[in-house]
Structure formats: C-alpha cells, structure tokens
C-alpha cells in the first residue's frame, strides 16, 4: 500500500454528496469506519452479535441525523460517540458491567502455525484481562490504545473532561497489567 497517495475522498466530501442526494455514498463511510467500530463494540460488549447490532443501529442513526452534524470533518468521532452510547445502553440493559468471553475472540485453529497459535493464546489472555476492567476503563483503554484516538477526540466521544479521561486511561493501564499478571 505504501507509495500510493491516499486518494479516498475525505469524510466531509462524502457527507456533502450524501446531503446533496447521493444516499448510496453512505456506503463509503460505512465501509471506511465499520472495522474500527466493530472492533471497539466487540471488545466493549464481549459479543460479536451484540456489537454488530450496536454498530448497525449507530450507523443508521448517524445517517438519519447526518444533516445535524455541525462539522462533517468530525464524522469519525461523532459516529464513535453514537456507537459508544449504543454500547452503554446495551450494557445497561444487561445490567452487567463485565462482559463474557463467549464470543470475544476467534478460537485458534490447530492447523495454524506455532507462532500463530501463540499469538492467538496471547490475544485470548489480553481479551480475558480486558473483560475484568469496568466498562468506563475498558472504553478509555480501547479508545486510546486500540483506536489510537487523542484525548481531545475521546472527550468529544465520551463527553468527559480531558483530565478525567487521562486518569481513567492511567487506571485502566494499571488494572490491565494487574489482570494480565493474574491470568498468566
């Protein structure tokens, strides 16, 4: 992929097309952002099915309210906020802060190479440790370290102040390391 300039139209340009009547262009935004959203929602909810529901609902909601988005360049943080709220509602409905590991990760195939198996085991270990974090800490860790968002973007998504988020990320790192020790 390297060596090629990114010629994809920016989100704001796609949104302008959608608002001008080209509703199919929303597919560009869905395909562009769904991987990150699904990854985030799956880790938040611990279930691929529940995550797919939350992301689909969030994207449909985003489409229906696209005209209300003040700054189209911020579509990514906006849609993360919508999906994060869907996840919170889902967790609240289940009234469980913890998530199960039922569908949190793929089961390693014995035909995979040794290195791949070891990687899958390590991933399972990290996922198990992640489920021991509170929903708030899990969200903070995922947004910061897995989705690679800045604290400013996280503040726009969660509605929290930056110092609060920093503290939450710090506590999440400590809790995750602690859990990794216990699950080793």
């Amino acid at each position, binding site marked *: 992929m390297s060596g090629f300039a990114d010629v994809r139209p920016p989100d704001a340009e796609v949104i302008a097309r959608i608002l001008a009547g080209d509703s199919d262009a929303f597919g560009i935004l869905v395909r562009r952002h769904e991987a990150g959203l699904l990854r985030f929602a799956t880790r938040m909810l611990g279930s691929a099915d529940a995550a797919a529901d939350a992301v689909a609902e969030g994207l449909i909601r985003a489409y229906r309210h696209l005209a209300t988005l003040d700054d189209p360049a911020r579509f990514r943080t906006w849609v993360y906020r919508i999906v994060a709220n869907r996840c919170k509602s889902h967790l609240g409905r289940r*009234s*469980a802060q913890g998530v199960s590991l039922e569908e949190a990760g*793929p089961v390693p195939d014995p035909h995979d190479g040794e290195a791949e198996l070891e990687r899958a085991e390590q*991933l399972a270990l990290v996922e198990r440790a992640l489920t021991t974090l509170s929903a708030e800490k899990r969200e903070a860790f995922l947004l910061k370290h897995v989705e690679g968002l800045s604290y400013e973007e996280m503040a726009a998504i969660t509605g929290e102040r930056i110092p609060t988020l*920093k503290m939450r990320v710090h506590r999440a790192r400590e*809790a995750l*390391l602690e859990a990794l020790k216990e699950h080793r």
Partner: protein
Amino acid sequence: MSELDPRIHQVLDGELPLERLPPELQATVLRLERAAGLLRAAPAPGSVTGPVLAALRRPRGSRGRRLFRWLTGRHAVTIAMRPVWSLAVAAVLAAVVLVPTHGAGPLLGAQEGIAQFVGHFPGARSVDVVGPFTDWRSGVIPLRDDNDDGVWSAVVVLPAGAHEYMFVVDGERWIADPLAGRYVSDGFGRQNALLIVRPAGR
C-alpha cells in the same frame, strides 16, 4: 492495584521518549503496547455494510405515515417542569380523576396513569429514567433539577401496570432507585426498581 511509575504514563501519552526510561520500566511500556497491538491487529468480526445499506434503502413511509404510527403507538410522554409545579399538576390531575364527574371523561386514557420519578443525585450533570417504556435508552425521559438542589424529578404518563426502571446518572451510572421500595431481579445478578402505575380512571 499497584500504581505505575508516572513516567510510564508519560511515555504512553507521548510526552516522554521511551529511551528516557530505565530498562525495567521500558519493559512495562512494551508489555502494554504489545497488549494493545494484539487487540488492534485482531480482525474485526464480520461486516455490517449489507444490513445497514439494506435498512437505509427500505422505504420509511411518508412523514405523515410516520407521524400517524408515532401517534398511535405506545410511548412515554414527558412533561418536564419544576418539582413544585409537577406536584401541583399531579394534585390537580388527581382531583380531576378522583372527583366524580357527570359525563365528562378523564384527561388520561383508562389504562394510563401518572408516574413521578424523583431522585437525590447531588452534583449530577444529567439524570434520565430508563425502562422498557424507553426501550432502556437514556435521553428519552430526562429528569430536571431546576433549582440545583440535587433533587431531580420528572412526571410522565405511562401505561398502567408494573414498570421496571433505572436511573442513568451522567449518561453512564445505572442506579436502581433507592427509594423505590419494590425491586425485581434483572436476571443478571442485579435488581431493577419496580413502579406500579395505577390507572388514572380508577
């Protein structure tokens, strides 16, 4: 839970180069980065492009038809007002309902009643009540604290019967009403508050 050396956080927050840390602290940074890297590299499960685009292509019906569906469907209706006014309105409605009338119908449907939600949440920025009547979504029935005394309230019209509910404080803390008096298990080891709404027509 043991606190990490603050320099570890500084490195992870991009405020300090990794090389400035002693080797044992560098190992902790790398451990966390590896954990995040594993989560990042794992393939996202499936795709929602098909279902999302299919849902958007499905005709939603005309605006009038959607309005008709909304008006004829069952919804919680929110009346946001100062607590003192909400009590006054509740008293007036109760008087209208309880005092026998000759021929005049009640203000509420025979199978509807008034529910008042009140909670003490000092320092909260927002409080919502959620339940099956909001599809467990917050933002539908916000409580208000107009005089900033930490007492949040809302008066709503709900279908008569038993309603499970929770308060959502600041959009994230789910709390069973400590003053509810009745609770039911949510099936996940916790309890929802239970409210019995009596039909206003009785």
